[in-house]
């Protein structure tokens, strides 16, 4: 089983420096692309590979690039923004990639930037990722030193600068357009779409925002080609995926596996199954902002299409497990508190609806809820749905809420009837 993304990563070791990385074949894709491929050919390779965005939405990366105006008439400068603001609760896959192999990300960024003829690339890094920041900064300096960044890279005529931008530290900064505002030094409110960032992004110029894991795939696609990439997967969605698991499993962690690995295999084989004395009650398949799945869904293949068909989203592919000895209402309250706290305050359903939801959940969890509160929560979850809000934050917050009410409704009702939390009796 090939694990291209994590091949260079050795747990507990410093990552490869540029020389070691190059010795292992690193930056070969950059040399190949700049010497022998046009930007369009790089973009086409990624398009052919069917690389889907690994940040959560699963949008086809090559398709996203294709909306960028190209050629000499295109507005300049153009930008690539690497979304390394991994703030989704329960998600730590990008951290693994950046701490473990920073050069892979930089190589991917150079290739992706080349594909859209970007002049500047930003890596927008989560504030708390100090180690990743140190390693990336070091790596970028090394790449500049080796001449693979800066003016006229290896005489190709292509120039690129990469800046590391460490976030101010809010979940909202990781939203595609909120990030653009954050980089510009503005409030991290989302922007309306259309116009899409590909035509009007950073400072009004064409910009592509891609997730770290997405970008890390690009060098391998350029090196090995689309058919190879598609072969890596169990399903028709190409490549490998970094999955993770947290919660009361025996060995929580992150693993690179073929796209489409089943939930059962992930939990039982890789995460080592549930800890003794705990039973699986449900799980969030792809971070905090995805719908709960239940033990009945364990055969679901973890790719974008299959998880969606099961009623949730692959999201970031990092599972959060709910066990039978934890209160589902408490878990949902905890999640909603996070989303309410992180709402940027721009659109009313998000700042208002989430404040309301947290208040109702707090009452229920404290045994002070009423039966009509549950219905109210249900209608709230519906009203915070996609299209009703400015960005995906509130719809994301609504997913675990709506699905918890679907799968764990009797637990909510028990809180009301018993006037206390059954898991935390006084």
């Amino acid at each position: 089983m090939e694990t291209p993304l994590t091949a260079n990563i050795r747990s507990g070791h410093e990552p490869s420096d540029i020389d070691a990385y190059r010795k292992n074949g690193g930056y070969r894709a950059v040399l190949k692309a700049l010497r022998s491929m046009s930007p369009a050919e790089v973009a086409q390779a990624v398009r052919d590979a069917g690389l889907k965005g690994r940040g959560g939405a699963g949008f086809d990366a090559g398709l996203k690039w294709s909306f960028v105006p190209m050629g000499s008439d295109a507005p300049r400068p153009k930008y690539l923004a690497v979304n390394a603001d991994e703030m989704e609760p329960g998600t730590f896959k990008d951290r693994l990639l950046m701490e473990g192999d920073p050069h892979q990300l930089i190589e991917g960024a150079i290739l992706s930037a080349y594909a859209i003829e970007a002049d500047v690339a930003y890596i927008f890094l989560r504030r708390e990722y100090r180690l990743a920041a140190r390693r990336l900064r070091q790596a970028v300096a090394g790449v500049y030193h080796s001449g693979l960044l800066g003016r006229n890279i290896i005489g190709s005529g292509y120039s690129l600068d990469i800046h590391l931008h460490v976030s101010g530290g809010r979940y909202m900064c990781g939203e595609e357009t909120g990030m653009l505002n954050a980089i510009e030094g503005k409030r991290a409110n989302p922007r309306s779409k259309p116009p899409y960032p590909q035509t009007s992004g950073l400072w009004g110029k064409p910009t592509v925002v891609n997730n770290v894991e997405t970008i890390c795939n690009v060098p391998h696609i350029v090196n090995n080609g689309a058919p190879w990439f598609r072969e890596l997967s169990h399903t028709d969605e190409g490549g490998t995926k970094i999955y993770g698991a947290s919660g009361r499993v025996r060995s929580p962690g992150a693993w690179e596996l073929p796209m489409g690995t089943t939930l059962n295999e992930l939990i039982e084989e890789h995460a080592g199954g549930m800890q003794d004395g705990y039973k699986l009650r449900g799980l969030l398949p792809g971070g905090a902002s995805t719908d709960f799945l239940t033990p009945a869904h364990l055969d679901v293949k973890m790719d974008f299409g299959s998880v969606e068909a099961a009623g949730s989203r692959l999201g970031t592919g990092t599972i959060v497990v709910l066990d039978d000895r934890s209160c589902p209402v408490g878990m949902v309250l905890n999640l909603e508190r996070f989303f309410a706290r992180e709402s940027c305050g721009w659109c009313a359903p998000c700042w208002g609806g989430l404040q309301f939801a947290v208040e109702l959940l707090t009452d229920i969890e404290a045994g002070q809820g009423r039966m009509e509160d549950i219905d109210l929560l249900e209608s709230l979850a519906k009203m915070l749905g996609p299209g009703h809000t400015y960005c995906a934050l509130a719809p994301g917050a609504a997913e675990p809420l709506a699905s918890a009410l679907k799968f764990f409704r009797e637990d909510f009702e028990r809180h009301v009837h018993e006037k206390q939390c059954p898991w935390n009796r006084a």
Partner: protein
Amino acid sequence: MVQIFVENKPYEVKPDQNLLDACLSLGFDLPYFCWHPALHSVGACRQCAVKQFRDENDTSGRIVMACMTPAANGVRISIDDREARAFRAGVIEWLMLNHPHDCPVCDEGGECHLQDMTVMTGHSRRRYRGAKRTFINQDLGPFVNHEMSRCIQCYRCVRFYGDYAGGGDLAAFSLRSQVYFGRHQSGVLESPFSGNLAEICPTGVFTDKSLKRHYARKWDLETAPSVCVHCALGCNTIPGARYGSLRRISNRFNGAVNGYFLCDRGRYGYEFVNSPRRLRQPLLRKGRSGPAAPVSATAALRRLREIISDSRVAGIGSPRASLEANFALRRLVGPAMFASGMSEGDWRLAQKTSRILKEGPARSVSLDEVRRADAVLVLGEDVTNFAPMLDLALRQSVRQMPVRETSGAIPPWDDKAMREAVQQRRGPLFIATPAPTSLDAIATTAWRAAPDEIARLGFMVASLLDKSAPAPAGLGSRERSIATAIAAALGEAERPLVIAGTGLGSEAVLEAAANVAWTLSAGGRTAGLCLTLPEANSMGAALMEGGPISRAVEAIESGSADTVVILENDLCRRAAPSLVENLFEKARHVIVIDSLINPTVARAGVALPAATFAESDGTFVSSEGRAQRYFKVMPPSGEVMESWRWLAAMGPAADAWRMVGEVAKDLENDLPVFSGISAAVYGAGFRISGQKIARQPRGYSGRTAMSADIGVAERQPPVDDDSPLSFSMEGFQGEPPPPLIPRYWAPGWNSVQALNKFQEEVGGPLRGGNPGRRLIEPAPGRPEQPPAPQPPFFNLPPAPFSPPAGRWLLAPLYHTFGSEELSILSPGIRQLAPAAYLALSQKDADDLGIGAGGIAELETATGFLRLPVRLAETLPSGVAGVPVCLEGLEGIVSPGEYVRIRAASRK
């Protein structure tokens, strides 16, 4: 036009708008908060949700935000859809989570958009049991009250203040349901447009602090259409009065003039009307120098008729008095004896201004045309301080070019996307002034120079655009390259605009501006020319043949007159003290009519209390040349009378004029330049359904009780002979013709946003057109080949600026708060007015040996003056800036004067 379907019924609507625009224009009640017709859509509040259907077979549809959805052909929506209604009710419920239910003690109550929308949406029962978030408020200065706990986070305040008006000190802080809209710390809001926050805010976060000091509910305010008196732009206002005192000014929409906004001088300057310095009773002086004693109006008039019948009378009119008052004076004294009331310099400049606009091919632009101009040259004027609303208009014009370049991909109404796309790009705006202006920050180039050098730059630009226009000799290479850039930008523009004016006191600058605008008005294009004037009726006074104050003084000196009537004019602010002295010495009788006790009134033989704008009717001609009628808000009280009535009563015309409209009619007959001013308004006999238009709203309370201290019988409301408006709640309460709209109200719409219901389409002109009658239109286009030998240009560019050794040119500096005569009596404006000072460049100050804060002594034509020095980094050497009419400087500075300056010895 495109066709959209609302509830399955087809409607024709304009393309290039969103569904909220379209629905509101069609008259539907669709609630909204973050959208504003001048600020457009951002999609934040989600209140205007409707259901959109793919086609007639689609029964499920999806929720969309009307403000963010284009009104494209064939779009089908339902406002009444159950899910859409439930969603809108949900939004209101969220907005109300933290909103305090303090309407009874909130200043916004009764004119609150949030109240209206809550009722419209049907949310009435609170389900949220949690704690509300609360905030600590800030002291934002004398104009705007802050009550953040009422906030519903619609973002309108920061969008207006920052995005639209360019203010830098109001921002959104923090996040989630705790966004705080305020300054980084308590302090006076810096923008001169801060008062608009009270109207922009849909609830009671930002309210009018001056109203708070003498509060009355909207339904208790008597209101009437009026025109601002604090500069020459003629912004339309709605003053509100109760118990005989003026309580506030709010905006009256005029799409061609001020649109939705007012400046703070215009909004807060009104308190002079309530000032203890008001002259409330006639004063009669015993002998020439005896004490002045109050007398009744009857006694005063008896004495006046004696004086007038026995004297040869000269009259001094006023650029701050109405056309009617000026004309009544002109009638009384005869045209030969009538002076306009302007200083020598102001008269010359005003004459030049009106001639340039009347006789040249460039168009005197409205403020709306300024907003739409796509390349602008400002020659000499600090518009922010001289005519503030021009600043706000220019802040919109600099967006024209970049928005046009971007609007292919993004609809212009999508404000957020447009601003992200446009970023900091701003269209061409060139500014040449002696001292820095606050518009410099958004200018393409801001250039500092002495007035003559500014004129030379203008002449150069004109000569680059048209070789037949004269070029100045010996222009430097930097000036040349700036002129080239200006010429290129203006030449390429679709709607180029030149702004200049009388502020600098330079005729050469006016001529240069005319030359530029005239060269641009060729080949089918009419360039805009905006020439600012100082006072509300400066243009009217300029058009009314008269002459400067000195004309009346000469008449007195020569003996052709022995008595002078001074109309609403504090001569001490305008004429040299010696001239004023002469007049008072030589005249047998000095009769002064004014509303405030000022130095001129204090010396009068007879002083007559005049009604202010709030208690009188009349016509002002704005600097654009737009004649606009204003109406009494409240009747003059006690012995106070309108100036024209005093004048009519003291002369033989006593029986001729009973109402202001008759004065206007005679004025039109006598001076054809004013013809049309009556046609633009509705005469006193105008009725709707047999009724006058009620100044008081239906809900006006306390009528039977408000004079109970005098008598319990309900008194007859005062009669208004002058206009079709009544001083009562009886009368027409609907939508009158635009010039007569006393307030904006419609069923269910109690806030200012009821204005939507008075417009042809939201954001568009009032139904029936924008009020006012333009008296000045450009002369027919300049011939392509000017007849030799004299091209129709001003032909004498000034020589390079070189002050005589040891002398400084005095450049007038203006202050929004402080330079204007009437508004300074408002406590808030007085608080913000700076103390008198002298501005010098660093170099000049060093040469004189004066540090910042040091004291300079000026030797002017009229005497010595000691002033603290402020350093103005970019002021040209040889130019000294002196603020106009700040306290202690009234009447001191005559622009263009050269003075000696030295360091004052410490006393």
